[in-house]
């Protein structure tokens, strides 16, 4: 039912797992290789040694962990969307006697894009590791050498892919736990949770109300947009802060790449989800005479305040995070971390361009939603 080549179209999952793997492979290998060398005698080198170990751990947890977590959410979103779009077909198969177990088994293939991402990410990480090591090895006494570790790719590539496959299987089983008739008719998906505030107040004008309900009914999506903007803002500004304190050459590149990946991929996936789950209602609004601008405003516009909150939080976060990172080397390095105002302005301009660019692109997609979708309900 699900073809392997279809799952490889999940570019978001591939990119996110690629990003998570490249960062994790670099810093995990470095951490393991550095921790295997003898602890230096000098107090100053000991501080640097401990600081670099801590920095590697934190980077793996923050960049690799966050990207990995977003990849999990994106994967679950993709499965939900696949089930929603194909539930009529799956309902027919269920009605014909296919078990939930048999139908869910084909979702194991959702591990393929994860494998593609982790494999290419880990491989590239190993290829660029010598360059990364040379930028990190400032002192001869603290020179870590890249040593082959077979168990690491087994865990990071095969292990992670298997975990994602199993996760896909169980999540699909959960989503397929409906009666065949409900799946064929698509009835249950219309049920939404009642938000407590609904009973207490008068409703707002329609567009405002729809915008508000979009945020409330998809809290994960709101979180997603917030994280995307926060990640973009924090990682980009962090790259500027790193450059200003003359940290390694490669770290700003990694930081800004992670920012772009978090921001773009997450935002595109969120906007795509909003559009795909609301096509019928966009069509209905158009049938009633709402303009394309109004449709955009009510659906995609609802997430703009969250995106700006995320962006605003990114700046202070990266500032205090960098202060903390530098404090790990206190005694060895005396560097003052300052808020990089120019970096903030450049990130702000880039954010506006990227966010509004993505919104404009999806706005065009909204304009292409056919009125015929009202008739096909």
């Amino acid at each position: 039912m699900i073809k392997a080549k279809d799952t490889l179209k999940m570019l978001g999952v591939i990119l996110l797992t690629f990003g998570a793997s490249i960062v994790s492979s670099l810093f995990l290998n470095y951490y393991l290789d550095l921790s295997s060398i003898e602890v230096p005698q000098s107090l100053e080198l000991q501080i640097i040694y401990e600081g670099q170990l801590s920095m590697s751990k934190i980077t793996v947890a923050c960049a690799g962990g966050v990207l990995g977590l977003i990849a999990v959410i994106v994967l679950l979103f993709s499965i939900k969307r696949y089930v929603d779009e194909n539930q009529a077909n799956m309902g027919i198969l269920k009605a014909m006697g296919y078990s939930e177990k048999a139908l869910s088994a084909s979702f194991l293939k959702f591990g393929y894009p994860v494998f593609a991402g982790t494999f290419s990410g880990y491989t590239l990480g190993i290829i660029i590791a010598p360059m990364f090591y040379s930028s990190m090895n400032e002192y001869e006494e603290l020179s870590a050498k890249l040593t082959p570790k077979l168990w690491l790719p087994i865990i990071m590539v095969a292990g992670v892919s298997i975990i994602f496959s199993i996760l896909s299987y169980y999540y699909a089983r959960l989503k397929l736990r409906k009666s065949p008739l409900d799946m064929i008719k698509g009835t249950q998906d219309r049920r939404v949770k009642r938000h407590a505030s609904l009973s207490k107040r008068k409703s707002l004008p329609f567009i405002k109300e729809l915008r508000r309900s979009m945020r409330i009914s998809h809290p994960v999506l709101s979180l997603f947009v917030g994280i995307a903007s926060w990640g973009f803002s924090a990682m980009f500004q962090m790259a500027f802060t790193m450059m200003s304190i003359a940290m390694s050459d490669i770290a700003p590149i990694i930081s800004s790449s992670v920012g772009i990946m978090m921001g773009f991929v997450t935002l595109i996936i969120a906007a795509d989800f909003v559009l795909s789950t609301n096509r019928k209602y966009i069509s209905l609004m158009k049938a009633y005479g709402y303009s394309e601008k109004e449709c955009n405003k009510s659906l995609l516009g609802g997430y703009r305040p969250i995106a700006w909150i995320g962006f605003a939080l990114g700046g202070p976060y990266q500032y205090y995070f960098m202060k903390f990172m530098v404090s790990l080397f206190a005694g060895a390095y005396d560097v003052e971390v300052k808020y990089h105002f120019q970096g903030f302005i450049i990130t702000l301009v880039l954010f506006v361009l990227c966010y509004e660019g993505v919104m404009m692109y999806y706005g065009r997609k909204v304009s292409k939603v056919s009125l015929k979708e009202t008739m096909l309900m």
Partner: protein
Amino acid sequence: MLRVKDLVKTYNNGEQRLYALNKVSFEIDKGDFVVILGPSGSGKSTLLNAISGLDPVDSGSICYDGADITKLDSKSLTAFRRKKTAFVFQAYYLLPTLTAEANIRMGADLAKINNIDDIIEAVGLKGKENRLPHELSGGEQQRVSIARAIAKSPDILFCDEPTGALDEETGRQIMHYLTKLHKEKKLTVVMVTHNSNFSALSTKVIKMNSGKITDISICDNPVAVDAIAW
């Protein structure tokens, strides 16, 4: 009010060209209650979608008060639907995350109507404004859908099988609301149905088969909803 002339709508089915509408012509006057009757696949829903500006046609004209909507660009067509038309669908098509009141506001805001209490009361939904669609029965959901449509103050209301998903009692209730609106507000109603008993409620019946109009009849004395068989 509405003049339809030589309307043609075709679909390609492989190498065959299927005529969903084949040279369809008729007129509707202001205040008419028109029932379009026909078996499945006769083209009645295609006709409704075409004359309401939802679906483009291959040729022919659809004139509203003298203006041909087949010649309008997308922006003007949106403005036409915004000002003139409203819809009631068989599957209600309510926005699931919005309350009944907010769904009705979808129509009311377009007509810049702030107070919708009268409309809610008129369709018997007083006290149920804050319920979500899935917390309402089928008949109540259809009443929200009707309220949403009339809140827009349309010139013409298009209904596609509005009782198709309802039992007899609820269906009668819905028809009661529609005929009441037609009489009290002098609203023009165009309704597609396969239930031939509804023809007794109308002022004009258009019968269709295989994309063509087979008969148009005018009824001077529409009967009450309770008087028809179901």
